[in-house]
């Protein structure tokens, strides 16, 4: 079959990565996961830098690694490109020579390789940097050249490892646009590791969420991020998530609290999801329209764009699931309420702002 087909099992001291990943030809799949979830290990195995305990990796039908038959192609012969956080352009070569490196290593003559490199540089909007040394490029420019260099080697699979993490805030959206355009134009099969849901939304057709070495969510990007089934995905997507059991009136938490919402699937494991912007904070119990009110204490206040994100913790003796819920307030509201870590508060969210969906058995690969 074409595209990437991988089954990987790597056992470490206190950690086992055990995943199956399929990426169709030309598809871009994002891998999200907290630190230590196994993302780097997975990329290492795909790139051939790590040998799995068990597993098989094939790209476009070509077996790169197969522990059953002892196949283990070295990185140079895998046709797996890597664009990492740092551009890592060869400092002694011009941008053009950097991009021509892959074709030259494949035995293409210099003139032809330079031609390919110029074409690739133009593709990423970096044609005018061809004759510059990496030291004379900004972070965003260098990352464009690095993308062109990875593509010029004609990889069957392109691995993108947090490719925007080291860029400054202004450069990220531009480069994200470049990557999106180039991936679409060239129909590359790509695997993107990121912690930023915007990267996944902009670039990926599908999202895998890894936790503790397993795939816990798998689906179209928009669906996974708007209907998270795990606390990690919710946090990545910037959403609050409460898990429990479906109820005709919403969701019932394990301690019996009802989170009022549009009806959930009765009796089944479910999650209630709502945005931090829809959470109001009061220092006294609120009244009025059908609202959910949860007692909590302020755990932390973090600047978040124009707003302040209030992180809540459970009250002593109160239900633990309150911990981690977030509310976005204006700085003025935070000042009016005199909020600081430790302040007892009531979090309030309208039932209409809460969505309940089945947590079910998360697609496990």
């Amino acid at each position, binding site marked *: 079959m074409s595209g990437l087909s991988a089954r990987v099992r790597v056992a470490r001291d206190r950690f086992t990565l055990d995943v199956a990943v399929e990426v169709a030809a030309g598809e871009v799949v994002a891998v999200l996961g907290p630190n230590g979830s196994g993302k780097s290990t997975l990329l290492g195995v795909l790139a051939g830098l790590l040998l799995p305990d068990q597993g098989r990796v094939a790209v476009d039908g070509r077996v790169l690694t197969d522990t059953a038959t002892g196949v283990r192609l070295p*990185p*140079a012969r895998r046709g797996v490109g890597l664009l990492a956080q740092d551009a*890592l352009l060869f400092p002694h070569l011009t941008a053009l020579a950097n991009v021509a*490196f892959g074709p030259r*290593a494949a035995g293409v003559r210099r003139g032809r390789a330079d031609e390919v490199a110029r074409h690739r540089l133009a593709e990423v909007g970096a044609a005018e940097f061809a004759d510059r040394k990496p030291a004379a490029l900004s972070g965003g420019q260098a990352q464009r050249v690095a993308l062109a260099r*990875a593509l010029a*080697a004609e990889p069957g699979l392109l691995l993108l490892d947090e490719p925007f993490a080291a860029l400054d805030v202004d450069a990220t959206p531009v480069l994200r646009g470049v990557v999106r355009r180039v991936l679409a134009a060239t129909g590359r099969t790509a695997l993107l590791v990121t912690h930023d849901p915007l990267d996944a939304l902009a670039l990926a057709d599908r999202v895998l969420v890894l936790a503790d070495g397993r795939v816990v969510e798998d689906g179209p990007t928009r669906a996974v991020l708007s209907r998270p089934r795990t606390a990690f995905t919710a946090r990545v997507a910037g959403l609050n998530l409460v898990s429990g059991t479906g109820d005709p009136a919403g969701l019932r938490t394990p301690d019996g609290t009802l989170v009022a919402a549009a009806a959930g699937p009765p009796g089944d494991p479910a999650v209630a999801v709502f945005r931090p912007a829809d959470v109001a904070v009061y220092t006294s119990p609120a009244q009025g329209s059908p609202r959910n009110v949860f007692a909590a204490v302020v755990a932390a206040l973090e600047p978040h764009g124009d707003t302040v994100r209030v992180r809540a913790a459970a009250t002593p003796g109160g239900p633990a699931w309150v911990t981690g819920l977030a509310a976005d307030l204006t700085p003025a509201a935070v000042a009016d309420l005199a909020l600081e870590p430790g302040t007892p508060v009531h979090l309030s969210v309208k039932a209409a702002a809460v969505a309940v969906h089945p947590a079910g058995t998360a697609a496990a690969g």
Partner: protein
Amino acid sequence: MSTRDRRVRTGLPVLLWVPAAVALALVVLPVIGLVARSDLSSLPARISSPGAVAALGLSLRTAALSTVLCLLLGGPLAVVLARSRVPGVRVLRAVVLLPLVLPPVVGGLALLYLLGRGGLLGSHLPGIRIPYTTAAVVIAQVFVAMPFLVVGLEGALRTAGERYEAVATTLGARPWTVFRRVTVPLVLPALGSGLVLSFARALGEFGATITFAGSLEGVTRTLPLQVYLLAETDVDGAVALSLLLVVVAVAVIAVARPRALRGQR
């Protein structure tokens, strides 16, 4: 930094100037003393005497050959020490430093008892005599000079790290291509400074040479040996040849310094 630089800089403690000046004087004054002692009018004649010319020629030839051998043998050794994961490599790294800390005379004796007629290896080389030949001069020079290249180059390789090499690999480059097009260019400045230091050390080599190779005119009597010999009998001649060595050393630094020595921080 231009003279227009108006940044306020952290002041140097005044106390440092005194020892710094003494240190500089210790380096510069002896050379000045040498120049002051020399008899400039007879200098050309002394430098162009047959013995001096033979010694200079031998010194330049052997030091150049030693430097090439340092590159061909020490270069790969530095790469192996920096990149290999074979257990025991750390011990080897320390062993390579031995000629740096060993008195050269001891090094010469060690070479003699390895390669001499009754030596560990020498006794197995029937018909090949190494001590007291030009080959012995070169071997002694390589022995003392190679660590300068190996240590500098190995440090540069470790600083450069393996990340660029890993990237080159994912671009489809085989190990030899990675070595030629990535590893070597990255450490070129350190390689240059290492070669300059090795050449200078080889040129000045005395102790190991006189122990292992003796002092035969035209065969093993390099310039430093000639200086030592003349110092007993013809002080003016010794001073003249010393100046010649200073000039050669300054020339080496002038040629190599701007790029190569700066590369090694």
